[in-house]
């Protein structure tokens, strides 16, 4: 991830969806192929990338994850719209 121009909300969300999809896919694959070292390496690399994109998103658009997995601004902004089905 080396990008300096700001993304709009949809672009950034789509980036996160892409990276996270690869992580879901690798997770299910590794569940039945636990000795594939290359896949594990790819998984860990993408996990870092996902965290970076989410930090970028949350700085602009508020927390993505519940129960302390994301930080809150003031006032408490977890409850702010839009929710995923409203986006």
């Amino acid at each position, binding site marked *: 991830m080396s990008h300096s121009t700001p993304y709009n909300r949809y672009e950034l*969300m789509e980036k*996160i*969806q892409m990276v996270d999809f690869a992580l879901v896919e690798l*997770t*299910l694959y590794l*569940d039945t192929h636990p000795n594939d070292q290359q896949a594990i390496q790819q998984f860990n690399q993408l996990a870092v990338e996902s965290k970076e994109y989410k930090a970028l998103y949350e700085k602009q658009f508020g927390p993505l*994850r519940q129960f302390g997995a994301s930080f809150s601004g003031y006032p408490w902004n977890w409850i702010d719209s839009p929710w995923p*089905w409203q986006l």
Partner: protein
Amino acid sequence: MWYYEKKLQYPVKVTECNPRLAKYLIEQYGGADGELSAALRYLNQRYSIPDKVIGLLTDIGTEEFAHLEMIATMVYKLTKDATPEQMKEAGLGAHYATHDNALFYHNSAGSPWTATYIQAKGDPIADLYEDIAAEEKARATYQWIINMSDDPCLNDSLKFLREREIIHSQRFREAVEILKFERDRKQIF
């Protein structure tokens, strides 16, 4: 425990208000081979399945809840601007009479979701075979709905979900092989 994330697994866009399509799609929300059934089936089977495949059932079960949210989003977007008259014309008059434009866990014919849609036999091979069958039936349902839908935006999301059913089915087949291998290995002294 589970952590909610304010994010759909894959984008859901619809071209226009279309309660007729929502009526078909609700099959994958509260129907026998829908996403609710899938999530509850796998997450419940976890407790009595051999350790080797608990991770897979946990992860696929969790992904099914993300799919459930995608279906809900489709139904929500297809019906949120529908008038009572449009709901009636789409065959959703009976739904509107009880639920207004709210979502509800029933199939496309209006039968409410029931636990009889799912099974937990305690026999790992029997359970995994049921899971494979469920994925294949869900894949077929997605195909039939795509065949009837003329909304290209919606079809893009439906195709994503159809492909996920294929992957899940394949992973469950691998789980069966893992368990067979373990069983045979234990017989060699």
